């Protein structure tokens, strides 16, 4: 038995000198941005960002040209544009989150989660009243919409992928058209078709009905795409084992698509959780926690935010920002939950 003296190395890995060089390029680019802004008429954040980008792209490309030649220089140049695209996509999101955090935090206090606004008006000091009615209202609306739209959406997707009936074409077209329906149209439809002639009263259910209309196409289309990814082999194997189509779909196709279907649900929730227009028309937006979603006005976060901004006083506007922060946090929590749930299922395979 001979002993090998070889040690594992990574000749392709970056060395400290490379990191140092990149850092210096970065610093030089920042410095030149300052210099350019100082000596030219360009002003403001945009000027800095623009000159920094140009300088960084120029320096890295030049270095690549000198050390590795023209193809490498082109590569470095394109790379900086790709990075620019990625950064520019993230900027608005980060900026929104930052603004919401900055303006919302002063309005956050524990009482928000234990009190509602039945004993306070938006112009009261922030310590009075809270968001409880809005948070419970939003969760109620989302839950109701979820209960109604997920079965409908998944059944639609199953019709399109498993049954492939005569009406697949028209139904697919209509579902796609439905996903473009403006939310105010869904709200007005429920208002004129259900609320005025039948229910005659504001309630959470009315809002949830409108949200369901908005949510079904998202759930149906995402589920359809997920189900199409399930290999046909599995369906054939299930049928060849003596399963009826329904047993095969329920026992094999749906479990195999489980993580994707959860994603479809969450995308649907994200589509509707912050929806405002139909809520304004249909729920009546009460200031008191309403445990009954089927009768009486139901508060919700979007409604609360809209109402507080309209009140106009500094306290009311702080309330609105706090409401925004809570809404964003709820959606973030839902997303994270869905991601971990679906990735756990994938890992189990």
């Amino acid at each position, binding site marked *: 038995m001979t002993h090998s003296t070889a040690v594992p190395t990574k000749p392709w890995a970056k060395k400290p000198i490379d990191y140092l060089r990149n850092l210096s390029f970065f610093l030089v680019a920042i410095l030149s941005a300052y210099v350019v802004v100082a000596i030219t008429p360009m002003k403001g954040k945009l000027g800095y960002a623009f000159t920094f980008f140009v300088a960084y792209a120029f320096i890295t490309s030049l270095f690549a040209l000198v050390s590795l030649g023209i193809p490498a220089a082109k590569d470095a140049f394109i790379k900086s544009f790709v990075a620019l695209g990625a950064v520019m996509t993230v900027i608005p999101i980060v900026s929104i989150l930052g603004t919401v955090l900055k303006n919302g935090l002063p309005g956050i206090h524990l009482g928000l989660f234990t009190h509602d606004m039945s004993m306070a008006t938006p112009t009261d000091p922030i310590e009075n009243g809270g968001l409880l009615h809005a948070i419970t209202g939003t969760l109620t609306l989302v839950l109701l919409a979820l209960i109604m739209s997920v079965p409908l959406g998944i059944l639609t997707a199953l019709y399109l992928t498993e049954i492939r009936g005569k009406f697949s074409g028209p139904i697919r077209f209509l579902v796609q058209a439905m996903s473009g329906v403006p939310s105010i149209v869904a709200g007005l439809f429920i208002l004129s078709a259900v609320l005025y002639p039948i229910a005659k009263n504001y309630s959470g259910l009315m809002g949830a009905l409108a949200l369901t209309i908005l949510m079904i196409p998202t759930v149906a289309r995402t589920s359809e795409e997920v189900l199409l990814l399930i290999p046909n*082999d599995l369906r*054939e*194997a*299930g049928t*060849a*084992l*003596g399963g009826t189509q329904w*047993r*095969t779909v329920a026992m094999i196709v749906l479990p195999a698509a489980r993580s994707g279907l959860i994603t479809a649900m969450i995308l649907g929730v994200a589509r509707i959780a912050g929806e405002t227009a139909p809520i304004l028309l249909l729920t009546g937006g009460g200031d008191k926690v309403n445990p009954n979603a089927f009768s009486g006005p139901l508060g919700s976060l979007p409604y609360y935010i809209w109402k507080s901004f309209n009140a106009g006083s500094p306290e009311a506007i702080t309330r609105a920002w706090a409401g925004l922060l809570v809404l964003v946090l709820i959606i973030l929590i839902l997303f994270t939950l869905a991601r971990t749930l679906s990735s756990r299922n994938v890992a189990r395979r």
Partner: protein
Amino acid sequence: MNLNANENANQESGKTMTTSVQPSSLSSVASANPQRTESQRAQGTGLETRGIHAWFGKNHVLSDINLDFTAGSVTALIGPSGCGKSTFIRTINRMHEFIPGAAMAGEVLLDGKDVYAPGVDVTKIRLQIGMVFQKPNPFPSMTIGENVLSGLKLAQLKVDNKDDLLEECLIRAGLWTEVKDRLDTHGGALSGGQQQRLCIARALAVRPQVLLMDEPCSALDPGSTLRIEDTIRELSDTMTIVIVTHNMQQAARVSDYTAFFLSEGGPGHMIEVARTSEIFSQPKDQRTENYVTGRFG
């Protein structure tokens, strides 16, 4: 609507054609299989096909297949790609009808009853005629154990002792010693050959009398192929096996009878069927000899 009308027309023409050719082919089949005794037929383990034709849309892919499968034997179907072997075995357990535009004519007799007769419960037919596919396809959402027993759940069958059945099926498929300690893990972690044996075990759990295998070893390495061939030989004691293969050595190793299919530009048809030793040593047809000796195809 137009397409449907054409299919119907095809089906009709196929049916009339079959009835016209059936009597002569019946007698020829009977004489070609002298081994088959009346007692075997009476045991109710028979699988016979009568004048099977198949179409995809207007494309006539399979013509007039008359083949008797002896109970407890292995029959290999050989022939070049596109000669209709896979289509033929998919007509036997009625998987053919899942392909859009598919049509067929003829009869598949299981214990003397046509599986295409009106009022036949298709799912029962597929329980009696199991199938193993070309690509291993264990169910990804189930563990190894659940995979083996999935047929029972799919068909809503009750069985007294699931653990015994699980062990029995895995032993017969030659997989038990490799997986007995990890029945609760997912099948995706197994090698390709193990996955295919898992699929065989899964097919055995519903106790079929016939097992159709569509190129079961084409995606596997030689070692796994030999394991599966051993499995096939052992299974043939208790069931009728039909195997499609492109591997001539495999056909020679595992089968008792071999049928040679050829398309020759038109629909695929059967050139001859005989004991495997005869097909490989003294085939009656020159085309069979050319094929098994590697001169074409």
